């Protein structure tokens, strides 16, 4: 079983000054084809986990191992090699491409920087001009192939980012991430900024890439609806900690954590038949770092009891392959639901000064 694990995150901690954005998160990503979703709202730390995996922010604790090798201590050429194996697609499609560079140049740059453009292609300073004719043609051919794979017209290589639609830009970002042939792709809210039709196309693309490239991916999102069909496993985060984790289908059908219950009930559904009664959580999603004593969710939890206010619930197995951090996880799993009372006057003090 351990051989199956591609990325092993154990007890990851990331702090920004006094703020503990990630406070002990563990997850395991198997070799491709495999999809795992990291779900949470603002303040959950999900984006930070993704960044920490990519070594874009320093971790303050815990370990990350890729193929059995430690990741957090990598430097120099080994770090660059890691960055070929693990890639990320950012949420902000509008700004993740240099507005002054043509699409083809942006993609070509990645190929050249990693020496992937075949023999004879030097790290040309001026881009196309400095390369030999043959090398330029090779790069161009590879760029065209990448664009096609991302379901884009290769002619777009000569355009600037602002001339493309949001969905197209995001697909270019995906193509760029694929340029290095990664084994693990981190997708940070890849469709949040897109229209629903563009979103559908991106999700279909990810599904296709998963099969064609045997890709493993970590899908970071707050939108539960896009997870089934893409990810076998999911992890729910709240205030930097894991609330629960397990196989997607089971977790969504029978949650073991009150937060998952509320999250699931809050998702708007088009099919009237699929709608569940809303669990309205009082107050707002707390800011990272404002962790109360005891269970981080207890101030908003409709099922909180005394022990929740004092003791942090440990992440424990509640069923085969499923873990939850809740004192009443067993009850929730068995069907305990909050009473249908309307939300009381919110006490949440909002952001501290």
């Amino acid at each position, binding site marked *: 079983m351990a051989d199956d694990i591609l990325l092993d995150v154990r007890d990851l901690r990331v702090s920004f000054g006094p703020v503990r954005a990630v406070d002990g998160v563990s997850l395991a990503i198997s070799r491709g084809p495999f999809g795992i979703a990291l779900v949470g709202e603002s303040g959950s730390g999900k984006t930070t986990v993704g960044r920490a995996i990519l070594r874009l922010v320093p971790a303050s604790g815990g370990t990350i191992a890729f193929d059995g090798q430690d990741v957090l201590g990598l430097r120099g050429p080994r770090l660059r090699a890691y960055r070929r194996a693990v890639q990320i697609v950012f949420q902000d499609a509008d700004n993740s491409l240099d507005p002054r560079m043509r699409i083809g140049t942006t993609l070509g740059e990645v190929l050249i920087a990693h020496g992937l453009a075949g023999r004879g292609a030097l790290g040309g300073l001026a881009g196309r001009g400095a390369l030999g004719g043959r090398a330029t043609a090779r790069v161009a051919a590879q760029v065209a192939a990448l664009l096609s794979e991302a379901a884009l017209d290769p002619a777009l290589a000569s355009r600037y980012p602002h001339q493309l639609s949001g969905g197209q830009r995001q697909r270019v970002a995906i193509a760029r991430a694929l340029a290095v042939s990664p084994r693990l792709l981190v997708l940070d809210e890849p469709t949040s900024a897109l229209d629903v039709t563009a979103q559908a196309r991106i999700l279909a693309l990810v599904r296709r890439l998963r099969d064609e490239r045997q890709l493993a991916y970590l899908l970071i999102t707050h939108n539960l609806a896009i997870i089934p069909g893409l990810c076998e496993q999911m992890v729910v985060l709240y205030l930097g900690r894991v609330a629960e984790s397990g196989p997607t289908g089971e977790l969504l059908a029978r949650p073991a954590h009150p937060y998952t219950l509320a999250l699931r009930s809050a998702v708007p559904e*088009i099919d009237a038949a699929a709608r569940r009664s809303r669990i309205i959580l009082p107050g707002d999603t707390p800011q990272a770092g404002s962790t109360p004593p005891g269970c981080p969710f207890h101030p908003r939890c409709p099922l909180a009891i005394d022990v929740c206010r004092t003791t942090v619930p440990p992440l424990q197995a509640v069923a085969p392959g499923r873990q939850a951090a809740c004192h009443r996880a067993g009850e929730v799993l068995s069907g305990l639901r909050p009473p249908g009372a309307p939300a009381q006057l919110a006490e949440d003090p909002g952001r501290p000064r």
Partner: protein
Amino acid sequence: MSQAKLEVRDLRVSFAGHPVASVPELNVDGGEIVGLAGESGSGKSMTILAVLGLAGTAGAAVTGSVRLDGQELIGLSAARLRAIRGRRIAAIFQSPALAFNPVFRVGAIVSRTLRQHGLSGAEATARADAAMRSVLLPPELLDRYPAQLSGGQLQRVAIALALALRAEVLLADEPTSALDVTVQAEVLELLRELRDSRGMAVLFVSHDLAVIAELCDRVAIMRAGQVVEQGPTGQVIAAPRHDYTRELLAAVPRLGE
């Protein structure tokens, strides 16, 4: 046939001759939520601005008719529009933080707006406090600065302001798109409350069809500035007549699988 609270007829908004939104007919009655659904560039936001009489400031030309309780709004003088805007037609937008000047306390902005529409200081305070309670926020939050409130709280304050003004119509342009899903659920619940207990007429613009499906009684689907289909929500979703509607519905991810 009694007239609807808000009646839009042959509304056309264009920039330098290019049409960006064209709505032949749209009614919003008191006590109902009508949805305007579409993707970016569909013209739905421009429609809201045109109803508010603010499209002109964006540089657009507006023709057609928008009637509030029978009174024509298009072509009204700026002064008269100002009296109506806020007081009878309120609006909330996607980014609540942009609606509040960061150097003023939230309460100051609210009370100033109320006083501008004719209330005395004492009345303004009383109404503001009552409105805050209606949106399930403690009135003390009015003493905070916008930066000290979360997105969800600010959006609820914006709704509270609409309530305090006793607005009859609420225009909402993607009010929950920037909010977390659990907070969104709260705000949507609030809008339902406004419809049911206050009889407000709500025009709700969103690109999220699932939200529209849950919230709106009737819906108009827009694409590239045109209304392609409209009708009761349940009907449009169960039996879409236009290809684009079908395409949109097919693209919406569903959790309940």
